[in-house]
């Protein structure tokens, strides 16, 4: 299939190709809606049928990725990765789900759930990816990675029966993304029963959120632009992990693609290349675009970077990065290395994006600025901890993969 973007210039696309217009065009030319759907379907690469890992690397790529650990700069990043993984191992997996409370005047319950999801996402994802990149004969993280993944699958499965809404989506879909990534990279080390357990959680919660995504009033174009990206991209990653394994995954993937192509990639960032609420949301939006679109082009043959050539603007990074960060910095501060950046949005929030920009756009300046962050590869701890449950906001930005591109 030839993407529409290769036929018509991007600037004309929104005008020429609303769904109604395409439908009308097809009716006039005698084609059916069914043929439109089959033309538009983005499918699993045949070589990946039944294969894992697939999202960010394949089994064949692992030896080369592991070999990078021996090089100087990737080796330093790997040290940060391992140090964070060792901290993760010392944490205890969650055993109880935090239910949604209706009486929540100061949003403490909301943030117990949100930070809880972000915390578990970070640890599940970091342990799984670090385990996958460890030496297969000597992997001290595999057991912890498996334990955390299964615990999260059991606890967060309750979300399937917890009516989805916008205040839950940005938390729940992120922990589901982590489960999907862990499922993908640990697949060969999980028993069939364990795989089925994780799939069941993803299937049940994913189905609930697929329904949520159909509601234009709550998850359509008018929805918060950053949260729109942070919700739709994880949905896409979950779908890509399960494509070819559960029938629902194809429809989930189409929803995630449609949201990106219909409005997120054209309107979630401003024409000048930032987010209308904050430059920090610009970084977050780019992170989530990368998580989804990189996996999309690996698992299918669809490359949204080619279709939307302006979807990775880096000018905010060029002007707002004002300083570096040491590897062992414990507590970050507003404006410390990023102008107008909150304490959790400093250069360590941007550097995984910079690595990707360098590779994708072949730009040495992004690689140069990346090296200002000596903590690259670390899981980010923050000063945002809820007062009673002590849920800590953590960030993991697929840092495990960044050394592979250096």
């Amino acid at each position, binding site marked *: 299939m030839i993407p529409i973007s290769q036929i018509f210039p991007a600037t004309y696309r929104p005008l020429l190709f609303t769904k109604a217009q395409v439908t009308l065009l097809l009716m006039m030319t005698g084609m059916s809606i069914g043929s439109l759907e089959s033309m538009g379907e983005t499918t699993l690469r045949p070589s990946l049928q039944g294969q894992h890992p697939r999202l960010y690397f394949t089994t064949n790529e692992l030896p080369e990725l592991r070999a990078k650990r021996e090089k100087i700069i990737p080796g330093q990043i790997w040290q940060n990765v391992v140090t964070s993984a060792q901290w993760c191992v010392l944490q205890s997996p969650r055993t109880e789900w935090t239910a949604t409370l209706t009486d929540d*005047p*100061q*949003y*403490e319950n909301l*943030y117990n759930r949100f930070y809880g999801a972000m915390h578990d996402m970070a640890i599940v994802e970091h342990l799984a990816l670090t385990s996958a990149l460890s030496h297969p004969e000597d992997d001290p993280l595999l057991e912890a990675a498996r334990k955390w993944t299964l615990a999260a699958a059991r606890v967060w499965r309750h979300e399937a029966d917890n009516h989805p809404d916008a205040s839950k989506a940005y938390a729940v879909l992120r922990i589901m993304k982590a489960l999907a990534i862990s499922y993908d990279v640990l697949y060969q080390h999980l028993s069939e029963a364990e795989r089925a357990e994780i799939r069941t959680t993803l299937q049940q919660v994913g189905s609930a959120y697929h329904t949520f995504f159909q509601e234009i009033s709550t998850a359509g174009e008018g929805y918060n632009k950053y949260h729109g990206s942070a919700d739709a991209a994880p949905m896409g990653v979950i779908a890509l992990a399960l494509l070819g394994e559960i029938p629902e995954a194809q429809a989930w993937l189409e929803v995630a693609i449609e949201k990106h192509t219909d409005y997120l990639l054209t309107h979630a960032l*401003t*024409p*000048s*290349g*930032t*987010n*209308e*609420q*904050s*430059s920090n*949301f610009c970084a977050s939006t780019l992170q989530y675009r990368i998580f989804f679109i990189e996996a999309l082009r690996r698992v299918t043959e669809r490359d949204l970077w080619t279709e939307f050539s302006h979807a990775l603007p880096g*000018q*905010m990074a*060029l*002007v*707002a*990065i*004002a*300083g*570096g960060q040491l590897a062992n910095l*414990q*507590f970050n*501060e*507003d*404006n*410390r290395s990023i*102008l*107008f950046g*909150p*304490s959790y949005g400093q250069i360590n929030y941007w550097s995984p994006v910079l690595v990707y920009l*360098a*590779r994708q756009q*072949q*730009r*040495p*300046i*992004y*690689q*140069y*600025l*990346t*090296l*200002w962050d000596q903590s690259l590869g670390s899981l980010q701890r923050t*000063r*945002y*901890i*809820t*007062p009673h449950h*002590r849920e800590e906001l953590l960030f993991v930005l697929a840092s495990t993969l960044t050394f592979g591109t*250096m």
Partner: protein
Amino acid sequence: MKIEPRVEAELPRSFQFPEPEVDEAYMRASYQPGDIAVGMKKGGLVVHAGGRPVLVDQLDVEDINHPTASVQEMLLADDGQQALIRSVGPKTAGLAEQWIQLNRPHRLTIRRNVDRPLTWWYTGTAVRTENQLCWPDGTKLQVVEGTIVSIQPSGRTDAKAHYGGMQYADPHPFTYPTITVKPADGQLKVIVTTPNSE
């Protein structure tokens, strides 16, 4: 393919994000760590010099839950040697016209028409000598029009809280010195320099 880390030739060193909701402009002296980098958002400034924030306005322009209005005018010009941001406002802070001029490589001049004393915060251990602050690496901030009224060593405490009122269990609240400067005849002029200035 491996990408060599380097500063590309002809890189932009200033940029404006002009959408009214955003209303930001940035200038940097170079891509060397420690050199001056400055951002203006809706009339509020953040200035980095010597690898630290040396002037951060307290105008709440970063509050995404209660966004402030854009300034009346903002213009960015850059000829390579000299870059300039001109803006008008915000009136609510008593600010009228502002000229922020970066003379590369080491000097930033901030001119503000303002009808009241301004307070901002900074980081690091700066030593005050009359109307000047000096950091250990030689970075200086000099008030050349206006007077330093006071410096509060712990004038600003940053303990993380939710906008709805919930106080987080911040494991490491930070305190910062604040400086209050009174304009002279409605004019404030501040010069920031990094070491190796002429």
